[in-house]
Structure formats: structure tokens, C-alpha cells
């Protein structure tokens, strides 16, 4: 069975704890993305799975076997590196063939396999060139081919698309997704690009400071972020996180004060159990609505900067006490810098985070 499991994996580098009690299960055929800002421990986690780093504690289980003490080559995994890590002195063909030497395959079988993989990734025309003679996109595909050719138990990708330009990234994203779907192996992809994670992964694990803050489907992490950090990390433009004073719940509506302005928001029933005090309210820029006039359910802000994005317009507004609020309005709504806006929130998309940053939700 092609599965990966991490049980309470921790990694220290001297005084620094790069990875803290990470638990993760990747089922056969599942693609899990480790997503987070740089330095959050996602690459270290991947290297621990690969066996390039040793876990300080915890277990790495691949295909049901504890692999902690095994060398990378004994784990039956393939990894695609951020900078491709092609062997510079070998041609594309030799690069792809390289992993096969372990199996001592018959030369004709080996070359048939290489040819099949090369055809799948459209590399036939560049097989006899050296890595520095081919384009970035081709290097990327050679790196994928080299990983795929050995037919390993599971795949690891470290920032696979970070070096490609925007257009190539889109095609490679779907190419890799197609290849992975055909192989149905457990796959872990590390990325800092949420779009990459949202589009490629079955589940996304969002990491910060060595801790997985949430593992869920793309839909869940977007709709129900477990923490304020996840909420701010997923979604563009970024979710508004406003510091607010919580003053109680009345018939399903929470009463808050944002920068002194009272506002009523429809909230999750769990919020009723929350003690009065400081909370963080999360509202996505697209969940804010421009009201004609100020009301008890809205807050006011002055438009500071207006950025047309094509289909929509992003407005940066500022409350009287200086909190920034991002609002996305349809293209046909005229907003100019300096306008005073009354904003109310779409009730279904209001998130309340307690003082520790955890979502308050039933």
C-alpha cells in the first residue's frame, strides 16, 4: 500500500525546533500539500519523510513500515526538488535513466521505460541535451520524469513550480496533476503558493512555526479556517482580521466594537459561550457589502486606495481609528479614493477567532 504516515514527528536544529509534533496521514492515491510561509518547517517535514533529515522524535511510516532508520534509497520514494537537482554532467536521458541502475534492469526494458515516461512528459526531443541546454519548463519535466520512471511507492515534491513563469506554472500544474492521478500513489507537495495547493491537493496542511494548524480539503480550509493564521494565509485578497471587543450575543447576532464603532454580526452559535473581551473578527474582502447608508450592522471606513483588478475592484479602506479593511466590489460599483463607505458583512462568512487565534465554531 502506498501510504505515508507521520506520528508526532519533531525535529530540532540546535535550539531551534523546526517541526513540532506533526501528525499527518496520506492515503494511497491522495495528494497532500504542505502549505506555509518560508521557514515554517514544511520542507524539513518533507526531508524527514524522504530520509534526508532524521526526526528528533516520532515515527515516519511509509507503506505500513517504520522507516526512521532507513536510508533515503531504502524507502522506495521519489522526490522532485525545488531547483530540479538534475545531474549537470548527464544528459536528460541519462538523468531519467539514473534511478534505474539500482534495480539492475535489462537495458531494453530500462530504455522502454524511459521512452514511455519521456513521451508522457513530451520530452522526446530534448533527451540528448544537457540540463543547461534546455528550458526551465523542460528541466522541470525531466525532474518529474526522473521521479516517475522508477515507479516508486510515493512521491515528494518540494516547491515544484516555484521557478516557472506564470503561464508555464498553469500548464505544469495540470500536467503534474494528470500524471499523479494516473499513478495514484501517496504524494506530498510542499509549496508556499496557496493557488498551487488549492488546485493540486486533495487535502491541504497549513503549517506555521513547525506546527500543522489545519489539515482539510481546499474547500474546508477556505470556508472554515481553524485559526486566524490559516484564515489570513488562504484566499486572495487576504481576509480582513479586525481586532474587536466582544460584548455578547443577542438572538444569534454578536455585538462587537471595532475601533469603538458598534457592529452587529450574525455569528456561529458557539460564540455565545465566549467570554466578553478581545476577539478577532475575520471577514473576507468579497464578503463585505457596500451599504447605501450607515446602520447598526455596518462599520464605516474611508477609501484610501482603489485597485481595479479587471472583473472586480479592490478597495483599501481605513476606519476612523486606523484599521485597514480590504473590500472587493463589482467592477460597476463606482468607488473613488476619499469616499466614505458603509460596510456590512455577509452573515455566512463571518469568522470569530478567540484571543489565542482559534476559530470559535460549532
Amino acid at each position, binding site marked *: 500500500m502506498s501510504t505515508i504516515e507521520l506520528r508526532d514527528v519533531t525535529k530540532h536544529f540546535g535550539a531551534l525546533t523546526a517541526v513540532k509534533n506533526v501528525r499527518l496521514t496520506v492515503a494511497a492515491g491522495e495528494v497532500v500539500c504542505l502549505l506555509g510561509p518560508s521557514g515554517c518547517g514544511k520542507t524539513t517535514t518533507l*526531508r524527514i519523510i*524522504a*530520509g*534526508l533529515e532524521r526526526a528528533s522524535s516520532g515515527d515516519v511510516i511509509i507503506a505500513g513500515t517504520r522507516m526512521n532508520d532507513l*536510508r*533515503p*534509497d531504502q524507502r522506495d*520514494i*521519489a*522526490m522532485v*526538488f*525545488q*531547483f*530540479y*537537482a*538534475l*545531474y*549537470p*554532467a*548527464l544528459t536528460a536521458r541519462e538523468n531519467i535513466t*539514473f*534511478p534505474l*541502475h*539500482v534495480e539492475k534492469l535489462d537495458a531494453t526494458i530500462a530504455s522502454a521505460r524511459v521512452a514511455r515516461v519521456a513521451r508522457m512528459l513530451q520530452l522526446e526531443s530534448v533527451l540528448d541535451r*544537457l*540540463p*543547461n541546454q534546455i528550458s526551465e519548463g523542460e528541466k522541470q519535466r525531466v525532474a518529474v520524469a*526522473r521521479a516517475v520512471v*522508477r515507479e516508486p511507492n510515493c512521491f515528494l515534491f518540494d516547491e515544484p513550480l516555484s521557478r516557472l513563469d506564470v503561464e508555464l506554472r498553469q500548464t505544469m500544474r495540470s500536467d503534474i496533476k494528470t500524471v499523479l492521478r494516473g499513478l495514484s500513489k501517496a504524494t506530498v507537495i510542499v509549496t508556499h503558493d496557496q493557488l498551487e495547493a488549492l488546485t493540486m491537493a486533495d487535502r491541504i496542511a497549513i503549517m506555521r512555526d513547525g506546527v500543522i494548524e489545519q489539515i482539510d480539503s481546499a474547500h474546508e480550509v477556505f470556508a472554515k479556517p481553524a485559526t486566524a493564521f490559516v484564515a489570513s494565509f488562504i484566499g486572495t485578497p487576504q481576509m480582513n482580521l479586525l481586532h474587536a471587543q466582544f460584548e455578547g450575543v443577542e438572538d444569534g447576532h454578536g455585538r462587537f466594537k471595532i475601533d469603538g464603532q458598534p457592529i452587529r454580526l450574525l455569528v456561529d452559535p458557539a460564540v455565545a459561550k465566549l467570554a466578553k473581551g478581545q476577539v478577532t473578527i475575520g471577514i473576507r474582502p468579497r464578503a463585505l457589502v457596500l451599504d447605501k447608508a450607515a446602520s447598526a450592522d455596518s462599520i464605516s471606513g474611508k477609501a484610501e486606495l482603489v485597485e*481595479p*483588478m*479587471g*472583473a*472586480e475592484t479592490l478597495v483599501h479602506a481605513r476606519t476612523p481609528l486606523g484599521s485597514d479593511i480590504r473590500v472587493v466590489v463589482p467592477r460597476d460599483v463606482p468607488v473613488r479614493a476619499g469616499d466614505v463607505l458603509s460596510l456590512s458583512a455577509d452573515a455566512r462568512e463571518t469568522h470569530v477567532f478567540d484571543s489565542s487565534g482559534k476559530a470559535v465554531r460549532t
Partner: protein
Amino acid sequence: MTDTAANPAEVAVRSRLFQQFVGRIRSRRSSIGIGDAGWGRTVLAAIVSFIYFFPVFWIILTSFKTYEDALAVPAKFFFTPTLDNFVHVFSRAYSAGGPVQDTGFALYFFNSLFISGVSVLLALVIGTVAAFGFSRYPLKGNDTYLFMILTTRMLPAIVVIIPIFIMFRVTGLAGTYLGIITLYTVFNLPFAIWMMKSFFDELSPDVEDAARIDGSSDIRVFFKICLPQVLAGLAATAVFGLILTWNEFLFALLLSGVETRTVPVAMSQTIGGDIGVRWGLLAAIETLFLIPVIIVTFALQNQLLRGVTFGTVKR
């Protein structure tokens, strides 16, 4: 949804700025194109490089002169060339009218080639492996060892030679091939290690990790993956090591014996004799002495140049 500005006015401004920028580059190209530094600079470069080359040129010229031509004042640039000097390098009469004898220079040339070749090769092999070790499997206090092996190169040779002379006397290595080859190898090693370490440090560790995941042993990683990437470094190290060893005089003078004498030492002993310094003869030795170094440097030139494009995995 996208972050590209769709504002037509801004796009127009941007494209105009871009065209101006391109235009400026083009106009600069047309006045001073790449690969065309102009005649003035070319002539200047020719003059400067000829000044560098002049002593070598003068030696080569002198090697074809007769005894009288070599001493002529003012110096002669045009004369009837003779090959006598080259013959005399290997066999000549030591006094006027005396018997023609073998000078032993065939042996000295062999010694120079053998001693330099073997010691540079050894330094390269040991140095490369050691450098890989220093780079990939650092010891505790790695830099201390790297620093210590350099210390002997920090003092003038004339200072270091006294303890080394005693070490050679005690061990009985003085005058033997083993002794002088060991000495040169040890001397070339720090340079080889430092040089090769810097090349290994430049390599992407990801490539090696990839090879390990693909099932390569450390040995295979070293030979198949790392070594092919540092060929330029090997070539440069070999050339510099060879030039240093080939021309070394002081240690060879004090530590080589009659049988293991190298050309620089033998050359110095040619000066003197009853008819004064035979400049033509000396120049002939030097001219012959130049040839191997020039051949090696030329042969490795391509590798040396490849050092410029070093590193396919850029970060």
C-alpha cells in the same frame, strides 16, 4: 482576479517607457558593440602583453645565438641562428679542447617531469578527496585544520626550509625521489584542498540528495555526480600546482641529490666554468624547460575556460 493592471492609460505609459529603454540599449550597442573594443584598445593590449612576454621572447631568441652574439652590445635582434646551444645542453666539452661529455640533462629533465607530474597528481587525488570530506563531512573545528595546513605557506620558504631540512635528515628522505615527491605533494596539498573545497562548496546539495534518493552510495555520488561538475576546478588546480612545482628551486637545491636533481637546480650549476656564463646555453635549457608547461596549459585551456560557465544549478 488577476493582479495585472488593466488600466489602458497605464499600459500605454509602460509600453512607451519600455520602448525608450530598449532604444537606449540599442543605441549604446551600435556605438560600442560587444566584441569590438576598437583598434586603440587592441594595440594597447598588444603592447602590454608583449611587455609581459618580452623576457620569455628574449630567452628564446638568445637560445639560438652563438656565444658572441649573446654577449653583443648593443643587443642583436637579427643574427644567424644556431642549434649548437640545444646540442650542448645534453653533451658538451667542459673545457676548451677537452672531451665531449654527457651533461646529465636528460636525467634532470626526466626528474623534473617525473617529480612534478607525480607530486601534482598525488596532490590532486588526495586533495580532491580531502576537499570533498572537508566540504561534505565537516570535522569538529573544520576550519582550524584548513587553517593549519596553510601555515607552512605563510612563511618565506627560506625560513621553513631549516626545520624541513632537519626532518629530511632524520628520516633519511633527503636526496631520494620519495623525499622530494612527498615534499612537493605536501606543499601542493593545502592549495589543492582549498581550491577544490571551494568548488565542492559551490555545488548544489540538492543534486546529491537526489542521487541518494535515487539509490546512489556516497562513492557513486562522489564519482558520478560531484566529480564531473568540478573538472574545471581540477584543471585549474593542476595547472597552478604544476607551475609552482616545476619552477621550484630552493627546496630542490637543498633536498634533492645528484640522481634526483631537477632542471632548475642543474641550471643554476651550469652558471660558471672557465669561459664565464654561457648565456646561450642557459637560454636553451630554459626554452626546453618551458615546453612541457606550455603544452599542459594549452591542453587544459578549454577546461580552464569552462570554469567561467561553472554551475548549471544556479540559485
